[in-house]
């Protein structure tokens, strides 16, 4: 979805077509869940918070101003604050600077089409094919480590190891 399409989508929602919001949820859910999981260190909590962030963003969409921020930036900011709330609720230490750094690093960037095409190509050609499969499963299909582990009948630790190796190979080819 391009930025223009995104703004049209938001305009539709504000006109009362709430079903258009589905496109935004589809667009940003995987990245947002990964962002929340990264802060909370827990996939399930990450999904819960991401869900709540989408709901809050929808309910406050009338206050959203595209001149001030991109929708994704705003959404990630809401989710980050909800993560902080949950960390505090669960009596876990909140390091606000670390969280701000993570937010800055994980905001979805609107990269060029050519670059996207290149990343996709490199992912699909990754060897061994298993590495490509787990990258696709986690980053594109929104599967958790637990779900991937179940699919491969292995442990989440092993999935983590595969993921690290897969990303290392990707970085060598992409960066």
């Amino acid at each position, binding site marked *: 979805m391009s930025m223009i399409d995104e703004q049209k989508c938001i305009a539709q929602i504000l006109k009362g077509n*709430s*079903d258009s919001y*589905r496109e935004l*949820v*589809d*667009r940003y*859910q*995987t*990245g947002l*869940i*990964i*962002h929340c999981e*990264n802060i909370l260190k827990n*996939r399930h*909590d990450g*999904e*819960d918070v*991401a*869900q709540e962030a*989408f709901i*809050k963003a929808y*309910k406050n969409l009338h*206050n959203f*101003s595209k001149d001030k*921020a991109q929708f994704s930036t705003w959404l990630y*900011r*809401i989710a980050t*604050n909800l993560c902080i709330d*949950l960390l*505090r*609720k669960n*009596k876990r*230490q*909140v390091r*606000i600077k670390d969280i*701000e750094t993570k937010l*800055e690093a*994980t*905001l*979805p*960037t609107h*990269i060029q089409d050519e670059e996207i095409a290149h*990343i*996709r190509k490199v992912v699909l050609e990754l060897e061994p094919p298993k590495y490509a499969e787990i*990258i696709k499963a986690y*980053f*594109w*299909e*929104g599967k*958790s480590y*637990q*779900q991937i*582990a*179940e*699919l491969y009948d292995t442990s*989440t*630790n092993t999935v983590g190891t595969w993921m690290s190796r897969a*990303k290392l190979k990707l*970085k060598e080819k992409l*960066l």
Partner: protein
Amino acid sequence: MKDSQFNALLAASKPDNYKSNTIFTDAVMSSIKTSEILSSQVRKTSVNKKETLFMKLRHLPKFAIVAIAIGVLALLSGTAYATYQLLWQKPEASVSKPTTSQSGRKEVSLLFSQCGTTYTPERYELKRDATITADQIEKVVKAQCELQAINEWAETTYGGKSSDGSYKIDSKSQAMRHPGVSAAARIGSINKSSITFSGQNKYNTQDTTLDIPKDIRYIANGTDVTSTQFKPGDTVVYVTKQGTRQTPKEDCVTDACREYGEYFTTQALIAVIKLDRPFDDYDQSAWQSLTELSVCEGNKEDLCLGGYSGSIDLYMNTMSQDFEKKIITKEIQGVITELNGKSLKIKSSSGSIYTVTTPSDVISSFNNNKSTDYNNQNIKIGSTLSIRYNEKETEHTKTIDVDKVFWVTVKLEIVKKGDPVKLY
């Protein structure tokens, strides 16, 4: 490039033909079509698990918790060693004399030792509808510390992948298992083949009977013991392995139709653990009578409410993001001392006065338009607000202008589920 940044790049490169998790999307779309929700009390519909009441108590990081205590006994016939391995360390907490906080509640400071591994707030205050008195705070907190230590131990010992053959995954279905620690219960009856637990908490008074497997563990005082030490009336918690399987309908081969599948759960007993304290000390409503106070983000001189509390959104702004200027989101909470339309003043826990300006009169808007949705509660002087605002890390202004305000909520007082909405 940082790893998190690289992750974002990979997520952003998702091809359009890769379907997102429709269960997640459906859950969001379903929620937004319902009426207003209470923030922090929103219904959780995790797409990957069925969370039990017991699991809600377990929001804890994994860690290695084996604490070894070695007792050395010197015997007359030479030197022999008896080793005692404690499965978790005994928690301790000492409580100060209650004082009165800015919100007029009884407040205590606590000094913890061995209360699990998680960060623990140092101050608590009693809610207005508390079911306990200030004198009872210490024993309630100690009881929760013990449950927390047991939860962490169970997660460490029984969490992670398991390979129970009965949960073999086929190409279409997904299954999960996770350890669950019950709320405090009393043993109703016990024999060689089964055990019945009763009085788990005020929300679930049904007895639970579980089969006793051959390899069950009985634990008391942090060590493995035999079943002979357990009898009806004992206060315990029990650890089970809970299974959830999600099976799509016939012909469903993708994630897209998985929401029409079936769930079923199993609960297999793993361990029964005798608790140190009387049953009533573990009552969840006693624990929820306490409000945890933690340092507010970005305002280390002040305390913000945490733990089992709720809030209602009053206003949320679109914030521009400028990481270059080191602008971060801070939070301040306090009781309203003045209301003047778009401007209001709050007094924080340290006694500081903050002036907050919003683009419209959000308080009157709530009182006039939303109050009826929330048990006719009206926001007034004395109500507690939470203000999230953006500011440079190094700045500490007491005047929060309209451009800085990100999120305004009014805090709620909730002691137990089902309580009518009441402002804090």
